[in-house]
C-alpha cells in the first residue's frame, strides 16, 4: 500500500468514527472556498449601495436581507470571509514561527534562554489579552497590518509554551543522542530531528488558535479598530447591525454574527479532529 493510500485510509477511518470531525472538515472546506472565490460567488457587489432597497428583510432576491444603505448582506458576509481568514492566518503564522522558535530554544537549551523567553511570555500573559491587543493597535495605528501584529503578539505565549514542553520531552530522547553521535550540531538537531516531531501538537494548537484569532480580529473591528467601513468584515457588520436590532432589523447583525460563530466553532472542532488524526493516544 502506498503512503498516500495509507494516509487516506487513516483519514477516512477517523472521519467515519467521528461524524462531528467530518462535519468540521466539510465546513472548513466551505470557508476556504468562500475565502478563495468569494468575490465571484457573491450575487451582488458588496459595496454597491441601493437606497431604494435599504433595510429589506430576507427575501428570495436578498436571502440575508439588505442593510441601511441597501447593500446585500449575504454578499458582504461571503466577501468578508477572505479578510477575516486572511487576518487570522497571517497572525497565526507569525506567532507560530516566532513562538515555536522561542519555545524550541527554551526547551532545548534551558538555562538562561529558558528564563528569558519564559519571562517574556509571562509578561504578555500578565495583561488581559484583548486589552493588550487594543493597546497595540491604538499605539501602532489603525490598520489591518497592526491588527495582525496585535493578534500575533497575544497568541505568542501559547506556541512558545507548547513548543517548549514538547521539545524538553525530546531533548534527551535516544534519537537526539544518536543524531549527536552522527555529528549533527545542536542547531541542526533542533531543526531536523526535534522540530518535525513537535509539529503534530503544534498543528492542533494552530487550529484551535485560528478560531481565537478570527474572534480577536472581529472583536477589534467591532470596537472600531483596524478594518474601516465600508470594507466588509464580520465584526464591523455586527457592530453596525447591532444598532438596528432594537428597531426590529435583526438580520443585519444575525447573519455576520452566525458566520463568525460558525467559523470559530469549525476551527475548534477541527483542532480536536486533527488531534485524533495525528495523535491517536490523546483521544478523549
Amino acid at each position, binding site marked *: 500500500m502506498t503512503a498516500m493510500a495509507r494516509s487516506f485510509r*487513516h483519514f477516512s*477511518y477517523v472521519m467515519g468514527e467521528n461524524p462531528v470531525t467530518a462535519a468540521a472538515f466539510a465546513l472548513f472546506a466551505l470557508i476556504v472556498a468562500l475565502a478563495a472565490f468569494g468575490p465571484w460567488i457573491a450575487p451582488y457587489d458588496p459595496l454597491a449601495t441601493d437606497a431604494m432597497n435599504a433595510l429589506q428583510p430576507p427575501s428570495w432576491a436578498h436571502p440575508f436581507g439588505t442593510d441601511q444603505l441597501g447593500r446585500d448582506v449575504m454578499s458582504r458576509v461571503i466577501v468578508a470571509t477572505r479578510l477575516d481568514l486572511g487576518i487570522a492566518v497571517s497572525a497565526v503564522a507569525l506567532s507560530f514561527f516566532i513562538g515555536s522558535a522561542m519555545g524550541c530554544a527554551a526547551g532545548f537549551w534551558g538555562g538562561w534562554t529558558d*528564563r528569558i523567553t519564559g519571562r517574556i511570555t509571562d509578561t504578555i500573559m500578565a495583561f488581559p489579552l484583548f486589552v493588550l491587543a487594543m493597546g497595540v493597535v491604538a499605539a501602532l495605528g489603525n490598520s489591518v497590518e497592526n491588527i495582525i501584529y496585535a493578534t500575533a503578539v497575544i497568541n505568542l505565549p501559547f506556541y512558545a509554551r507548547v513548543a517548549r514542553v514538547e521539545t524538553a520531552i525530546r531533548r534527551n*530522547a*535516544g*534519537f537526539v*543522542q*544518536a*543524531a*549527536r*553521535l*552522527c*555529528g*549533527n*550540531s*545542536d542547531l541542526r538537531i533542533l531543526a531536523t*530531528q526535534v522540530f*518535525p*516531531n513537535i509539529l503534530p501538537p503544534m498543528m492542533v494548537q494552530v487550529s484551535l488558535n485560528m478560531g481565537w484569532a478570527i474572534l480577536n480580529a472581529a472583536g477589534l473591528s467591532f470596537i472600531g479598530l483596524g478594518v474601516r467601513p465600508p470594507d466588509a468584515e464580520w465584526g464591523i457588520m455586527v457592530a453596525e447591525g447591532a444598532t438596528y436590532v432594537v428597531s426590529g432589523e435583526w438580520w443585519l447583525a444575525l447573519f455576520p454574527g452566525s458566520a463568525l460563530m460558525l467559523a470559530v466553532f469549525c476551527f475548534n472542532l477541527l483542532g480536536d479532529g486533527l488531534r485524533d488524526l495525528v495523535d491517536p493516544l490523546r483521544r478523549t
Partner: protein
Amino acid sequence: MTGHPILSVQGLCVEFRTRNGTVRALDDVSLQVAKGEVLGIVGERGSGKSVTAFTVIGLLDAAGRAVSGQADYDGVPLLAAGKKSLGEKDLNDLRGREISMIFQNPRAALNPIRPVGKQIEDVLLRHNQATRQDAQRKAVDMLTKVKILEPERRYWAYPFELSGGMCQRVMIAIALACKPRLLIADEPTTGLDVTTQKATMDLMADLTRERGMSVVLITHDLGMAAAYCDRIVVMQKGKIVEAAPVAELFKDPKHPYTKKLLAASPGPDSALGDLTAVPDAPPAVETVSPAAVTKPMATPAAPVSENLLLEVKGLVKTFPRRGAKGGGWVWLKGHKGRNEEADFVAVDGISFSLRRGESLGLVGESGCGKSTTSSIVTRLLDPTAGQVILDGEDITAFKAARFARLPQRSKIQMVFQDPTESLNPRYSAADSIADPLKRLKGLRGGRQLDARIGELAEMVGLPQSLLTRFPHQLSGGQKARVGIARAIAVDPLLLVLDEPTSALDVSVQAVVLQLLDRLKRELGMSYIFVSHDLNVVRLLCERVIVMNKGRIVESGKAEAVLKQPQDPYTRSLIAAIPHFEPAKM
C-alpha cells in the same frame, strides 16, 4: 491437580477493534489453576498473556470484546458465552477480596498523591476487612509482612519517596491485604534490578505459599517461570501451544515454539550458537543466514592485537544535587549552597583499558554508573575529572558539544537501549542510516550514498524493501538492525552497546546478539557492552567489569567472573538471575 480448579477458563476468544479491522487477540484459550498452584503464563510480546488475565478479571480495554468462551472462579461464572455474567458491582466485590492483581509498573499502579499506608487501608475498608479504628494497625501489619523497614514511618510515605522495589512490595501488600485466594501477577518485576527482582519474587512466593493461595504469574522470562511456578502454559499469538509441569516442560518440550524459546533464553552454560539452534518452521526475516552463526564461540574471535585502543584513567563524574546549586538567586546564596551538601558522585574514579578487537562487558544494576561511564566514553557527557584516551589521543580534551563535529566522532559510535526511542519517528530507515554518512563522511545524496546504505542493510540483515519504511512500520528486531546499521555506517573503531537487547523479546535478542558477534569479527571493531544481565554479557564479551555505586568491584575474564565470582556483590548478582534448576524440583 487435585479437587476442582479455583480458576477455569474454557475456549476463550477475544477480539480487538482497531483501525485495520478486528484483530483476534485470544484464540480458544483454555486453562485451569488448581488450589494452591502457581501457574506461569509465558510468551513473548503480543502473545496474549496479559489479555487473558485482563479478560478474566473484567478489566478488558473498551476496544476489546470476549467473543466466546467462559471463565469460572471457584464455581462462580465470571464469563459465560463471551458475556460478563456478573454485574460490575459483584465483580468489584470479588476483585481485591477473592482475586487480586499485581501490575507491571508499580509506580504507575499506585496513586501518586496518597500515602501508601492509606492506599492499603482503602482496600481493607472497601471490602469490610477492617474498621476505621483498626485499619491503620492492619495496614502497618501488612507493611511489616512485606518486609518494609520502619513500617510506621513508611505508612505515611508517598510512592515517589519509595524505590521501585519498595513500591512493588506495597503493591503486594495491597493485593494480599484482604487475603484473596487467587493472585494474578502481570510481569511483576519488569523494570526492577535482578537482586530486587529476586527479593520481591521470593517475598511474593513466601507469602502466597504460607496462605495457600493460587497464583497466576505472567512473564516473558522462562527462567523466572521455572524458578517460581509449578506448571507453565506457553502462549504464542493468542494460542496456548503447550502446557506442562515445569520439570517436564524443560526436560522434554513438545512444541517447536517452546523449544525455540528455551533455546533462545541464555543460561549460565549456553553458547551463542545454541540460541537459535531451533529454527522457525518457515525461515523468517529475523534469522541470520546459517553460515554466519555456525558456532561463533568455537572458532576463536578475531586475534586480539596487543595494542591499546581505549584507555580510561581515573574517570570521575559528579552531578550537583537538586537544589544545592541553583535556582535564580545564585548571587544571594553564593557558593554557600553548594558546599552545604556534597555533589552526587555517579562515577567514582574508575580506570580500565580495551584492546583492539576486544569486547568488554560493563555490568551492574541501575544507578551503578555504567550508563554515565558509557556516555562519557562516547563523549555525550563531559567528565568531572579523568581522561579517556582513544587511539592514542585524549578525547576528553574536547568539550562534548564541540566533539560532535570533529573527525574523531566517527571513531566511537553507540547502539542505544531502546530501538524504538532511538530512531526518529519521522525518518525512514534509510534516512536514519544516511544521517551519519552525510554528516561525518560527507556523502551527499546520489548513488554512492544509496549504495552504501544498501551495503549496510545487507550487513545487518535488513531486507532492502524495508528501507523506505518508518520506525512504526518495523518490528522490534528490525528497528534494532537499523540502529546497528547506523552505528557501524562510519566504520567506528569502538562501538558502545548500551543494553542493546533489553527491550527485545528473547528470540529476537538471540538473533541480534549473533549479528553483533558476526559484525565484530567481520569489521574488527571493539565493543563495550553495557548490560545488567551477566548471562548475556558472557556470550559476547571476553572480559567483564562489574560496577557498583560508581566503582569497579570486580573485573576479569567473563567465564571466570561468572563461574567463580570473588566479590560478594558479584555473587549476589549472579545468584539473583532466575533459571531452571532441576535440583530444586
